């Protein structure tokens, strides 16, 4: 990976490029590299983000630029430092990333996921909560939950998530010492014995879509126990967490009654795991304006987006604001786009674009698109 970068660089530009860094491991990155782009390994990308995780527009960019490059930014570095320094015997610390639309929250989360993966954490990652709760009803398949009364199940999404979990944690599931603590009976003929590896549980959930939601429930409980028992350290990353607390979802029961998020069986396990009653891990959560419908999108602060219930649930947490590009970051991003042939034109463009996009990363990307 490194050598390919160097080859490309020497082929295209002989002058020193100031927007790239060759340090591609998040554990080694420090403040010298703020504003510089590092390229992620393609295999790692596929492993971590096969079923989501990176925003769709960014996926298109990766295809055009033929590489996945993330910018190292201060909020991510701060959180990485915090996680490195935390005492893992204490209860988990919760970090909440917040910012305007398009400030870079999802990409920061991706950066942190990369770090977690390198550091050997067990990753529990929901790429985008609103996918489950707010997608159009005609694309969804729902059923009434069996193990819980009056709850709604989303089996296909649950199965997809289990696949995602499996891909992300391939290494750990194979080599790690992760075993269930008790026996689970699914039906007359199916059961998972105690002491079975977690991988088996996951396989079962994927194979038997009907029980996928319950599998997830069980899985997360097990993970909590295992973290407490210091068998593995867990990294929980949830994008669009405030969607769990919005009063309505787009789902409705066959009787046409609107369902609240609390009645969806998938919310419960993730509520459990985001409580701070376990140790040996870290929780990072983002609150996004886009996770709720447009008439509730007045403010981007967590207090507004999480509503009272979510705030109480998450309290206390460490808030982290993801701001817009600074001067240096902006220039570095502009030169990266020029290098990738995405932005062409005279140099005066940059000052104009800086003003017009007001240094918002997403706006900048959109403005550069037709140029």
């Amino acid at each position, binding site marked *: 990976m490194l050598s390919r970068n160097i080859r490309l660089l020497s082929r295209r530009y002989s002058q020193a490029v100031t927007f790239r860094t060759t340090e591609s491991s998040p554990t080694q990155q420090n403040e010298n590299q703020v504003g510089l782009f590092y390229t992620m390994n393609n295999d790692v990308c596929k492993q971590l983000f096969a079923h989501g995780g990176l925003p769709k527009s960014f996926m*298109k960019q990766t*295809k*055009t630029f*033929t590489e996945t490059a993330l910018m190292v930014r201060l909020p991510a570095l701060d959180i990485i430092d915090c996680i490195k320094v935390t005492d893992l015997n204490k209860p988990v610390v919760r970090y909440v990333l917040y910012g305007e639309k398009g400030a870079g929250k999802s990409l920061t989360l991706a950066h942190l996921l990369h770090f977690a993966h390198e550091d050997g954490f067990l990753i529990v990652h929901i790429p985008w909560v609103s996918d489950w709760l707010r997608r159009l009803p005609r694309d969804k398949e729902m059923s009434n939950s069996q193990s819980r009364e009056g709850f709604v199940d989303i089996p296909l999404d649950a199965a997809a998530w289990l696949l995602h979990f499996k891909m992300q944690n391939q290494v750990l599931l194979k080599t790690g010492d992760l075993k269930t603590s008790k026996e689970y009976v699914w039906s007359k003929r199916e059961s998972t014995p105690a002491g079975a590896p977690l991988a088996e549980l996951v396989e079962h959930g994927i194979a038997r879509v009907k029980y996928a939601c319950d599998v997830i429930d069980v899985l997360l409980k097990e993970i909590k126990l295992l973290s407490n028992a210091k068998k593995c350290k867990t990294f929980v990353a949830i994008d669009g967490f405030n969607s769990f607390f919005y009063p309505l979802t787009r789902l409705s029961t066959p009787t046409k009654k609107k369902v609240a998020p609390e009645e969806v069986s998938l919310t419960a396990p993730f509520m459990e795991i985001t409580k701070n009653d376990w140790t040996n891990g870290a929780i990072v959560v983002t609150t996004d304006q886009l996770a709720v419908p447009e008439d509730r999108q007045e403010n981007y602060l967590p207090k507004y987006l999480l509503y009272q219930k979510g705030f109480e649930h998450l309290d206390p947490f460490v808030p982290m604001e993801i701001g817009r590009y600074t001067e240096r970051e902006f220039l570095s991003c502009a030169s990266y786009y020029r290098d*990738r*042939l*995405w932005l*062409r*034109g*005279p140099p*005066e*463009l940059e000052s*104009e674009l800086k003003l017009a996009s007001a240094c918002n990363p997403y706006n900048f990307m959109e403005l550069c*698109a*037709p*140029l």
Partner: protein
Amino acid sequence: MNSIRYKLSGVTCSVLQAANFRPAYIQCRLYSGPTSFPDFFKNPIFRKEEQAKLIEINELSKLAISPVKPPGVSETSSVYYDPLVNKLINHVMKMGKKQLARELVEKAFENVKRIQIERYHLASSAEAKAKIILNPKDILHQAIENCRPLLQLLPIKRGGIVYQVPAPITEKRSLFLAIKWLLDATNDKERTIHFPQQFAWELLDAANNTGKVVKRKQDLHRQCEANRAYAHYRWQ
């Protein structure tokens, strides 16, 4: 002109001058009738290149004395403004929805860029790479150039029959026809494909001298050539 007047000094030269009469300081009106601003307001010149030209001739101070109309809502002096793109957006616009039209055209340019960058990366040799145009605006200019008709067919009625007579075409009209044909071809798309995607394909085809629009222009030229015999009907 002067030599002619020398020979025919008796004849009033106003007749000879009548064809191309245009005093230097009369501006070309954008609209034929009166507009909100009175006649003596001049059209604005806000592009940096055009202003530079004026500064060379030292005309700037003279023009600054007369009142000038303000530039329109979608015109800026920034580097990435192109009057042709503006015109295109206006043609795409329906029911006054400028923002939507602009978004569609910008997405189309983005698609063009992505396709071209992909081709660039796939191209092996340096010459092939150099031939690929990566700027979507250049592709648009090239496409429009390739789609412009050089003649048009006018229906002229002689002796009860309407003949299609080839006739010259002004630049403005040929530009209009080129844009209209491009948009017609794009709107003939399938339901599932979005406008920007189809438009990007049409632009790339036209820039490459292939595709539906260029074919339409070539058909028109062929018809003009075929109807050459009727050309004199314009003056009968």
